[in-house]
C-alpha cells in the first residue's frame, strides 16, 4: 500500500462529518480486490452458504469462496463442517457436485478415502498393489484441511485464516441485540429462496442495504406506509450497521391469515423490524414473523450474486397450506430487492469516474454506511 492509499484510508476513517468514502480503487482495481480477499474476508468471519443447502446428513456441496475451493458437508452426526476441497495426496478436487454421500468421501483419482470428520480413512495400494499402508504415510497427519466454521441463524460462516476471535465474540453485539430471535427458525422451502445477480462490487450492496435514506426515492411503494421518519440508524462500530423501522406490518393472506410470530418477543417487535449488515457480507432482517438473510457472493470484482433465504417462526409455516403466502411474501421481498439493483449497478459504473473522490456522507442519514466504510478501511490499515 502506497502513501496515497494510506492517506485515502485515513480520510475514510475520519468522523462522518469530515470523512470521504472508500476510494474508487476499492471497486475497480484487481490488485486491491486480491488484497481485500485476505484482509476483509479471510481474516474475518465471512458468510459462505446456508445450512439449508445441505439439509440431510451426508449432504455435500462444493463451493468456491473467493477462488478457494471448499466443500460443505453435513456429517452423519448432523454437524456441518467445511473442508478444503482437495485430496491430501495429489490435490485433486474431491466433491465436484452437490450430492448425498452414503459413506466416505472418496477421491475420484486414487481413491484415498476420508470420513465425515475429515480423517483419512484408507489409502488404497499406497504401499503397492494390495498394500494399503506405508511407513511414510501417516494418516493421522493427512486428514482433510478443515476450515474454521460456525453456524448461526442457519448461515454457515467461515474464518479462513483461523485467527479471528470466536464467532460468538465476533458477532456478540448483534447476537445480543437480537437475542429474542435466538430460537429455532424454519426455512420456507423452495419458494422462499431466490438469487439476484448484479453487475456491482459487493460492497455497494452492503452500503445500500445499511441506510434508509434512499427508501422514499427507490422504494416509493414502501414509503406509503413506512416513511423515512419511521426509521432509525443502527451502528455498532467495527461489527455491523443498518436500520430499523417502527412500522412493520406482517403480511396477511386474502382470508386474513398470518404467519406465526416468534415466541416471547418484547413489545418493540410488535411493530418494529430491523435490518443489519454483519460485516463483511451478510445482510439480515428480523421481524416478528420471519427473518431473512442475504449472502453476498463476490463472483468477480464488479459482479455480485445475492443469495436470499427466508425463514419462519414455526414448523407449521413450512406446511403446504402456507405455500401461497410464502410465495407472495418472497415475491414482495424480491420486488424490493430488485428495486435496488439499478442503484448498486449505477454506483459501480460511477466508480470508474476518475475524479470521483469517494463521496461525502450525510452526517445524519449515512452513519451506517460510513460505519461500513470505516470498517473496510480499518481492515486494510490493520494489515499495514
Amino acid at each position: 500500500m502506497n502513501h496515497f492509499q494510506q492517506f485515502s484510508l485515513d480520510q475514510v476513517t475520519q468522523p462522518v462529518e469530515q470523512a470521504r468514502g472508500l476510494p474508487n480503487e476499492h471497486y475497480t482495481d484487481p490488485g486491491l480486490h486480491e488484497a481485500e480477499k485476505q484482509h476483509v474476508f479471510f481474516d474475518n468471519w465471512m458468510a459462505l452458504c446456508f445450512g439449508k443447502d445441505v439439509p440431510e446428513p451426508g449432504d455435500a456441496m462444493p463451493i468456491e469462496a473467493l477462488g478457494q475451493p471448499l466443500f460443505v458437508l453435513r456429517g452423519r452426526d448432523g454437524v456441518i463442517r467445511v473442508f478444503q476441497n482437495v485430496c491430501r495426496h495429489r490435490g485433486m478436487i474431491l466433491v465436484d457436485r452437490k450430492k448425498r454421500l452414503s459413506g466416505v468421501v472418496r477421491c475420484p483419482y486414487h481413491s484415498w478415502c476420508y470420513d465425515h470428520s475429515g480423517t483419512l480413512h484408507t489409502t488404497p495400494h499406497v504401499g503397492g498393489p494390495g498394500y494399503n499402508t506405508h511407513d511414510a504415510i501417516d494418516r493421522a497427519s493427512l486428514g482433510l484441511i478443515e476450515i474454521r466454521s460456525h453456524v448461526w441463524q442457519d448461515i454457515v460462516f467461515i474464518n479462513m485464516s483461523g485467527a479471528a476471535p470466536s464467532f460468538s465474540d465476533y458477532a456478540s453485539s448483534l447476537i445480543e441485540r437480537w437475542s429474542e430471535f435466538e430460537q429455532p427458525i424454519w426455512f420456507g422451502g423452495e419458494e422462499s429462496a431466490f438469487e439476484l445477480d448484479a453487475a456491482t462490487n459487493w460492497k455497494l450492496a452492503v452500503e445500500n442495504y445499511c441506510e434508509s435514506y434512499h427508501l422514499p426515492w427507490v422504494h416509493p411503494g414502501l414509503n406509503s406506509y413506512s416513511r423515512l421518519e419511521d426509521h432509525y440508524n443502527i451502528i455498532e462500530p467495527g461489527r455491523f450497521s443498518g436500520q430499523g423501522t417502527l412500522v412493520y406490518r406482517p403480511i396477511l393472506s386474502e382470508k386474513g391469515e398470518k404467519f406465526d410470530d416468534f415466541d416471547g418477543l418484547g413489545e418493540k417487535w410488535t411493530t418494529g423490524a430491523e435490518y443489519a449488515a454483519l460485516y463483511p457480507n451478510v445482510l439480515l432482517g428480523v421481524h416478528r414473523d420471519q427473518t431473512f438473510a442475504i449472502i453476498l457472493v463476490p463472483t468477480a470484482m464488479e459482479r455480485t450474486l445475492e443469495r436470499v433465504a427466508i425463514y419462519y417462526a414455526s414448523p407449521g409455516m413450512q406446511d403446504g397450506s402456507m405455500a401461497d403466502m410464502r410465495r407472495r411474501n418472497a415475491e414482495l421481498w424480491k420486488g424490493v430487492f430488485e428495486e435496488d439493483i439499478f442503484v448498486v449497478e449505477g454506483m459501480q459504473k460511477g466508480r470508474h469516474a476518475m475524479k470521483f473522490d469517494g463521496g461525502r456522507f450525510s452526517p445524519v442519514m449515512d452513519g451506517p454506511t460510513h460505519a461500513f466504510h470505516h470498517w473496510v478501511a480499518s481492515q486494510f490499515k490493520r494489515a499495514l
Partner: protein
Amino acid sequence: MSANAIERIDADLLAAHERSDGPALAWLYEAAAAVKEEQGDVDAACFFLTQAYVFALEAGLDQSAALRGRLVANGREEAPTGPIAEARIARPPEG
C-alpha cells in the same frame, strides 16, 4: 473357480464401473477376491479386497468392516482405532 469365473466377473465389473454402481462394484470385487483366495494368490486377492473395501466404504455398506478385517489380517490395512464417522448402511447388491 476358473479363469472363466474371473472373465465373467470382469465383464460385470466393467458394466458396474460404467454405471458408477458402487454397491455392485463392492460385491463383484469381493467375488473376484474369493476366486484369487481359492487359487492361493494372496496378493491378487488383497488387491481385489482393497477395491471391494473402497467401494463398500463409499457406498456405506455394512460389509466394509469385514473387508477391512480381512485386509488387516493379511497385514494390508491399519487396524481400526475407533468407529468411523459415517454410518454404515446394509444394502443388497443391485442388478
